C-alpha cells in the first residue's frame, strides 16, 4: 500500500476514515490518497462501502441522518470535517455525479445553469457561455444545442448522465466524484463517457466507482480495491497503480476478485 504524504500531487487524502450508519460500522480505517489530475477507480463487491467512502469525500454523508464519520479527509491542507468548515463550500469544489442519472425536472439550460445561479451568477450572457462550455465539455452540446428549452427528463439515459456531468462541470470543481456513472448505459454511451473522463482529467481530479473491471483498467491510473470482512464491515484491501493491481495484485483477495472468482 502506498503511504499518503502531503505534497501537491494529491487532491485529497483520506486518513483513518470510519463511517457508521447508526450503530453499525460500514467502513473501517480507510487511508488512501486521491491523485491530482488523475483518475482513481474504486472497485469491490456490492455492499463493501465504495459509495460510502465516495460520499465521505464531499460530505454528502451529512445528508443521511444516521450516518456518522470519524477520521480525516484532507483537502487543500485542511480536514473537511473540522466543525468550522462549511460543507456547502466543499460540495461546490468537490462535485458529484450519481449512479442513477438525476437531472432536475427543468429544462436542459436550467439544469446546467442551476449551479452557477446558486453561486450568484445572474448575468444572462455569462450563464449562456457557461452552459455552452459545460455542455461541450460533456460532449452533449451538438445533440441538444437546438433544444435547450427541452426538459432534462426528456433525454435518453446516456444523455441524462452527460447532462449531469455538464451540470457538475458548470461550477468548475477541483475534484469530480462519479458513482458508477455508466451502470445504466449501453456500451456506446459508456465509451463516450470514458472518452470524456480522459479529456476531463487534464483539468480535474476524478474518482470513479465501477463494477466493470475493464473500465477500471481502461480509464484509471490508480485503483482501490475494497471488500468486506466477516462482520460485513468494508475495508480497503489494496491501493496501487492500476496496472500493478491488475497484473500483480499483492493480496490474494484482490487476485480472486479481478479474476472473477469472488463477489
Amino acid at each position, binding site marked *: 500500500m502506498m503511504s499518503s504524504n502531503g505534497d501537491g500531487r494529491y487532491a485529497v487524502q483520506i486518513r483513518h476514515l470510519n463511517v457508521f450508519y447508526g450503530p453499525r460500522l460500514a467502513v473501517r480505517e480507510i487511508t488512501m490518497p486521491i491523485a491530482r489530475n488523475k483518475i482513481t477507480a474504486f472497485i469491490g463487491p456490492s455492499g463493501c462501502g465504495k459509495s460510502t467512502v465516495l460520499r465521505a469525500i464531499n460530505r454528502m454523508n451529512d*445528508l443521511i*441522518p444516521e450516518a456518522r464519520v470519524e477520521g480525516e479527509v484532507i483537502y487543500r491542507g485542511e480536514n473537511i470535517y473540522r466543525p468550522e468548515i462549511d460543507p456547502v463550500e466543499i*460540495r461546490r469544489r468537490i462535485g*458529484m455525479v450519481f449512479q442513477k442519472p438525476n437531472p432536475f425536472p427543468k429544462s436542459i439550460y436550467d439544469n446546467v445553469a*442551476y449551479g452557477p445561479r*446558486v453561486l450568484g451568477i445572474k448575468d444572462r450572457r455569462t450563464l449562456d457561455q457557461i452552459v455552452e462550455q459545460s455542455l461541450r465539455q460533456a460532449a452533449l452540446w451538438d445533440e441538444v444545442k437546438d433544444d435547450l*428549452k427541452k*426538459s432534462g427528463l426528456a433525454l435518453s439515459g446516456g444523455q441524462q448522465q452527460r447532462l449531469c456531468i455538464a451540470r*457538475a462541470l458548470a461550477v468548475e470543481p477541483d475534484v469530480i466524484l462519479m458513482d458508477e456513472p455508466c451502470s445504466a448505459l449501453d456500451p456506446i454511451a459508456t465509451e463516450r463517457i470514458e472518452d470524456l473522463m480522459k479529456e476531463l482529467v487534464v483539468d480535474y481530479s476524478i474518482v470513479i466507482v465501477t463494477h466493470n473491471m475493464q473500465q477500471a483498467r481502461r480509464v484509471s491510473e490508480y485503483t482501490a480495491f475494497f471488500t468486506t470482512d466477516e462482520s460485513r464491515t468494508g475495508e480497503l484491501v489494496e491501493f496501487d497503480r492500476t496496472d500493478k493491481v491488475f497484473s500483480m495484485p499483492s493480496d490474494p483477495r484482490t487476485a480472486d476478485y479481478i479474476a472473477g472468482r469472488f463477489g
Partner: protein
Amino acid sequence: MGEQVQDRQSFVPGDQAFQDDLRRRHRRAKRWQVFFFASLVVGLLALLALFANVADEAFGTIAIASKYSEAEVLAALSEARGVTVEGPLEALENDDLAQVLALYIPRRVPVIVRDELSRVKPEDFTRVPLREALAGATLPPDIADLTISQLSLEQQTAILSANLTHDVLYARVLNDVIGLDILKSWTLSRTLFDYAGIEAEFQALVAAQDPPNPQLKPHSWLNSTFVTGTQSSYPELAGIRTAILGTLWIMALTMLIAFPLGVGAAIYLEEYAHSGNWLERLIETNIRNLAGVPSIIYGLLGLAIFVRALAPISSGALFGFNEANGRTIFSAAMTMALLILPVIIIAAQEAIRAVPQSIRDASYGLGATQWQTIWYQVLPAALPGILTGTILSMSRAIGETAPLIVIGASAVIFVDPSGPFSKFTALPIQIWQWTARPQEEFRNLAAAAIIVLLALLLVLNSAAIILRQRVSNRLRG
C-alpha cells in the same frame, strides 16, 4: 458460481390444474370489477339525486296575486306621461319604473332611497346632507348639500332612476306597487309531471281566498335579481350579493393566511426537523388529530380568541376602523384558516416527501444551501401536490357553516362587506337561515343559493386546477 441443482423439484401446479385455476382467477377478477363499477354508479346516482333535489326546489311554478294588474299600471303611467307606454312592465326603462313608484307610492320613495342607497345609520339618514348619506351615488351637484326631506318628489325619483339597477327598480315596482304576493309555490317535478294538479290547487286557492289579480306562472328562483340583489324579508326581492361577497372575502383571506403558514410548517417538519425525537412525533400526531376535530370546536376557539380576546384587532379598532365588535370577516377568516391549516400541512408534507431524494442530492452536490435546495428544487416539484391539497381544503372551508354561526356571522346584512373588518354574512349562513324559516318560498331561495354556492365552488376549484396544471406543465418542460 454455485453448484448445479440436480433433481429440481416442481412446486407449481401442472398444466390442467393451472388452466382450471386461471379461469377461477379471471372469474374472481371479473366479480371485483363489477363491484368497483357498481360503487361508481352508486356514487354518481347519489350525486344526481342531490342535484335533482336542489333543482326541484330552485325552479318551479308560483301562484301570485297583486293589488294592481300590469295593464292598470301601464295605463296610469301612460296618462301621467301623456303618451302610450307599451308593456310589458319588465321592459320599461329605469325612469319609467321610478315614475311608477312616484305615482303610486310617493311617500315611500325616500324610504326606498334610504333602504337601497343609504351609507349612514337609519336615524341619521334624514339629518345629514346627501353627499354623505348617499356617498358614492350619482347626484346632481346642486342637491348634494341638501337632506333628503328638502328634495321634491321629482328629485327623489331621479335619484332612484339614476342609481338603482333595472332589476332592483322592477322588483320594487312588483313588490311595493303591484303588491306582488306569492300565494303558493310548486316544485319543478310537480310542474313537469302534475301540472293539472297544480292548476286544480290554484283554482281551489282562488275560490277560497279570492285574491286580487291571481296568476299562475313558471318561476326560476335563481335569477339575476337573486344573485345581484341585497337581502330582503320578501322572498321575491331577496338577493344574496352580500353573502357571495362575504364568502369571497373570507375565502381569499383564509387562503392568504393558511397557505403560507401551512406550507411553511410542512417545510419545517419535512426538511429541518428530522431528528425524529419525541417532540416532533408529538407535534406530527397532533396535527393529524387536529385535522379530524369537528369544525364547531374551531368555531368556539375562534369565538374565544379572535372575536373576544383579540377584539381590538379583529374589530379593526386598532387600525382606526370602528366596528362595534370582533364578529368580522377577519375573525371568520382566521378561524377558517385554523380549521384548514392541518389539512394543508398534511397535504404539503406528503407532497414534499414525494419529491425524490435524488433531486435534493443533486442540488446539494452542486453546492446549494439547504434553503436554495428547498426553494428552487423541492418546493417547485412539490407544488402540484400542495395545490391539490389546498383545493380540497378550500372546498371544505367554503361550505363550513358551524364555525361561522358560532363566531356570530350576522344573518341580516344590507351593506356589502368592504374589507377584513366588515361585518359579514356568507352563503352557507344564508342557506342555513333560509331553510330554518317556515315559509315554503324561503326553502326555494335556499335551493337557489345552494346552486350559487356550488357554482362558486366549481369556479374557484377550476381556477386552482388550471393553476396546478400550469405549474406541473412548466416542471415537465
